[in-house]
């Protein structure tokens, strides 16, 4: 396939960026999207140009590092991560626009790479449980009802890629935060911090400069792991419950 790529190039956080156009030939339908970009970078290096910087790590859809907005969709046209997107989703002769995640809480570091450490700080605010160290506990010591385990697992699927923020017209991190809150709040292991977790994670989310939720549903549509929009509803409920229980 022959493609026209329009890629966001930006030298660093302090320099304004712009879209640059590249023609790329000899792309196979079986390549992943990132392999296609590897080919582009090889060509750029041979020509003595600066290769396009983009984030990636596992390339198997589990780490959450890859983060491209492709033709206006976070992670592109399929419900999956950018690394698991294949060129068969495009046609010969297509023009593909490739942009970084856009949100003021995710500043661009270079080209398509953004700084997502705001998510780490939201996690640090409450995305943990308290457990004694030492040898592993007996597996059956704390029974978890099947329905709760399934619910926790559905939310635990969040890989923290930030596609929800990228897709949200308000740059909100509600879907990410709610996935983390619900994952731990439903489990007995997470119950000691149930109230403080939701209050602290939400206030850290606000402090990072993410926007608020207007329930457009864009986040859940973009999520490669299918975290449901109702995750946000459940977090709102947990937040309301916590404000009644905790005096501060």
């Amino acid at each position, binding site marked *: 396939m022959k493609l026209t790529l329009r890629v966001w190039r930006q030298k660093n956080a302090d320099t304004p960026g712009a879209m640059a156009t590249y023609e790329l030939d000899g792309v196979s339908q079986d390549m992943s999207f990132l392999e296609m970009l590897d080919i582009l970078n090889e060509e750029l290096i041979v020509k003595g140009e600066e290769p396009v910087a983009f984030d990636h790590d596992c390339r198997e859809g589990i780490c959450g590092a890859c983060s491209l907005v492709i033709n206006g969709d976070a992670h592109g046209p399929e419900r999956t991560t950018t690394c698991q997107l294949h060129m068969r989703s495009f046609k010969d002769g297509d023009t593909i626009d490739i942009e970084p995640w856009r949100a003021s809480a995710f500043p661009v570091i270079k080209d398509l790479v953004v700084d997502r450490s705001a998510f780490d700080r939201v996690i640090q605010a409450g995305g943990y449980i308290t457990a004694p160290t030492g040898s592993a506990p007996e597996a059956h010591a704390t029974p978890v009802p099947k329905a709760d385990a399934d619910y926790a697992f559905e939310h635990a699927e969040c890989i923290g890629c930030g596609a929800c923020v990228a897709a949200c017209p308000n740059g909100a991190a509600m879907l990410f935060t709610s996935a983390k809150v619900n994952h731990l709040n439903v489990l007995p292991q997470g119950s000691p911090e149930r109230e403080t977790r939701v209050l602290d994670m939400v206030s850290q989310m606000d402090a990072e400069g993410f926007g608020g*939720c*207007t329930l457009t549903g864009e986040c859940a549509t973009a999520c490669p792991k299918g975290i449901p929009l109702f995750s946000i*509803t459940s977090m709102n409920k947990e937040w309301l419950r916590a404000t009644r229980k905790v005096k501060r």
Partner: protein
Amino acid sequence: MASTFWQSTVGKKIVMGVTGLIMIGYLVVHMVANAKIFFGPEEFNAYGHWLRVMGAPVLHHEWGLWGARVILLTSVILHGVSAYQLSRRDIKARPEKYVHSKPRMSYATRTMRWGGVILGLFIVWHVLDLTTGTVHSGGFQEGHPYQNVVDTFSTWYGNVIYIVAMLAMGMHVRHGFWSAAQTLGAGNRTRDRAFKALANGLAIVLTVGFISVPVGVMTGVVS
């Protein structure tokens, strides 16, 4: 506690949801009461009088009415201020647009902010027109709401302002009611169809119900 709510995006949205629902509740009552206009001036004017003696003999003249006005005014101010502050924050959180962007949200979702502004302006006009009479066309008669309503809807601009605002209201309620269910934590997968249907039903009934009054005047059913 109050500051926890007001300082958090989640809390402020809850304030919007609760005040929005209070206003929707009021709209339902208001629409049902408006239907009395189809039963003649005596019936409609008597209802206008009752609003002033509501709660009597426990409440003094107009106390019940002023209570309702205070609740509604507080709701609309809290709702509008939250909407303004959250919108400012949302726009700041997403300063750069995508070069490749496409509209994906439903029309009702996309128009919440401007629709809300239209509603705010409409509320001011509506009160000045039919409550205080300040901008009323023709002689405003205190205690004769039936005639006042007929006067307003005998002007082309009265009809246009009112009908446009009611269409905006229907749209706002459509996304707003469903949103409030999520904001207040009532929604979930199994109830979603019910909440969506309720939101659409409310929006349609309220829009048709309110618009029936100017249509009634225009067609001569109410005169």
